[in-house]
């Protein structure tokens, strides 16, 4: 067996096991969590940033450089935006009814008001 074929087979092994793992980790999720869970999974495929950085590192011609720049920017947007937005959603689920209101009303502008400085 050639070294290349061996590499391919080990990559395929990882791929198949990761798929099975993906099937297993999503069990009986309450509908409440469907949106955050989708958003959380969405952030994970931001791992494509690793690949984008690797192609940027070896890009020499202008076309390749432009392509990798866009790829890095896209992937970073996926990573950063995905995790921040998921956290914003989940943070709301954790709120204890007792500890809310006065402090938070000041820190958290109501969405129908124009976004204040704290919203940016």
């Amino acid at each position, binding site marked *: 067996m050639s070294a290349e074929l061996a590499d391919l087979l080990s990559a395929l092994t990882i791929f198949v096991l*990761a798929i099975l793992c993906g099937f297993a980790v999503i069990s009986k999720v309450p509908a409440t969590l469907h949106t955050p869970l989708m958003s959380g999974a969405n952030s994970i495929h931001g791992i494509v940033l690793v690949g984008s950085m690797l192609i940027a590192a070896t890009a020499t011609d202008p076309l390749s450089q432009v392509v990798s720049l866009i790829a890095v920017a896209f992937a970073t947007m996926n990573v950063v*935006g995905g995790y921040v937005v998921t956290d914003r959603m989940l943070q709301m689920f954790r709120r204890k009814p007792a500890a809310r209101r006065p402090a938070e009303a000041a820190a958290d502008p109501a969405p129908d008001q124009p976004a204040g400085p704290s919203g940016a």
Partner: protein
Amino acid sequence: MDQGTIEALVRLAWLAGAVGFVIGLIRMNSPATARNGNLLSAGGMALAIAATAIFVAQHGASTTAWLIIAVGIAIGGGLGLYAARTVKMTAMPQLVSLFNAVGGGAAALIAIDDYIRLAGEASAIPLRVSVPTVLDIVIGSITFTGSLIASSKLQGLISGKPIVVPGGRLVTIALAAIAAAGSVYLFLGNVSLPVMFVILAAALVFGVTMVLPIGGADMPVVISLLNSFTGTAVAMAGFVIDNPVLIIAGALVGASGAILTNLMADAMNRSVLNIIAGGFGGGEGTVAAVGGAGGSVREVSADDAAIQLAYAQHVIVVPGYGLAVAQAQHQVRELAELLESRGVDVKYAIHPVAGRMPGHMNVLLAEANVPYPQLKEMEEINPEFERADVALVVGANDVTNPAARRPGTPVSGMPILDVDHAKSIVVIKRSMGRGYAGIDNELYTDPKTGMLFADAKEGLASLISAVKAV
């Protein structure tokens, strides 16, 4: 440290990142640990990216390369952070879709870049390279344009209604055939940049024609499906550049996204295939089938409804899509608190697909500071409707239609909230307009029901001032 050791450490860091993703996803299965799970996943991501930076430095990247990486991260990170921090909770679904689009786009770009490079060097590309490369380009491109269309539909940039062009389905099939034929040509060992670009173009247009005929209310399932696609495209990108962490994370998202898509579709009582086939609701023919509901509609004034609410003991609020669209979550909370201060027991009945996507209503109400224990899931609240003096329906339609219990209607078999079991019902709704299923709601003609015709926000505001005056 020598190069070998560093490379080994980088690979171990990638592995640790992947472990973070898996454990993070497991912890996101339950509300109590979900936030912690997301942070764990983010930590894994940060570790993997830092390790990659070390790897790149170790291989002596040029200044230009570092500049590309830095500028790309600054632009993408800035945009992502800004969008994520400023988005309104009601606009969440389209933002997730936008992030999904760029993720898929990045995955496709990796394969495109790799193919251009290979085509310049090699006269033949082996199957083990061409298969993942082509799959990455096709899946990544479909996700890119498909997610952008889904996002625009939810944002209202293009109509949320199913857009059906005569012969549109033929175009979609033709595009799939072109992409398939091009792929086979490349798999046979041919190296051709033009053919690669034809495949790319066909896949990009396919993404558009696939999502356009699907109605806005089905978008959550479509976004989840495209999310799963992106995962698969990223895994393919992992094969293309031979990187294990991309393969693991991509396969993980591809598989878990597929399961989640199915769960979402189940909650809406639809099959994924049925949704992709599109055109549900809003079409001709579905409306006439029901008929017979006839009956007269009783309209109530805000004052009458306020008296009913103020002197009730148990009130169940049923928030729906209309509340999400009108962003009336703060008003509904204010009304509930007002009633509670008068000694009324208030609960919220949350249908699994209330709002714009599954679980969305919980997020909206949580944002408005509604105490979490007051939010009741469908199975839990349904037996309680019998004891409710008033059920207040705010902008919910199909999920309350008793016709779902009978066979032969477009909503048949869909799990519904038993609102019609309440002693009396007040519905805040803008008009008698039909819901997404395109049929009349028999609840509205029930003698126990009073209709308060208003936008969710205005209707609630008038109820609030009327209750204060009681």
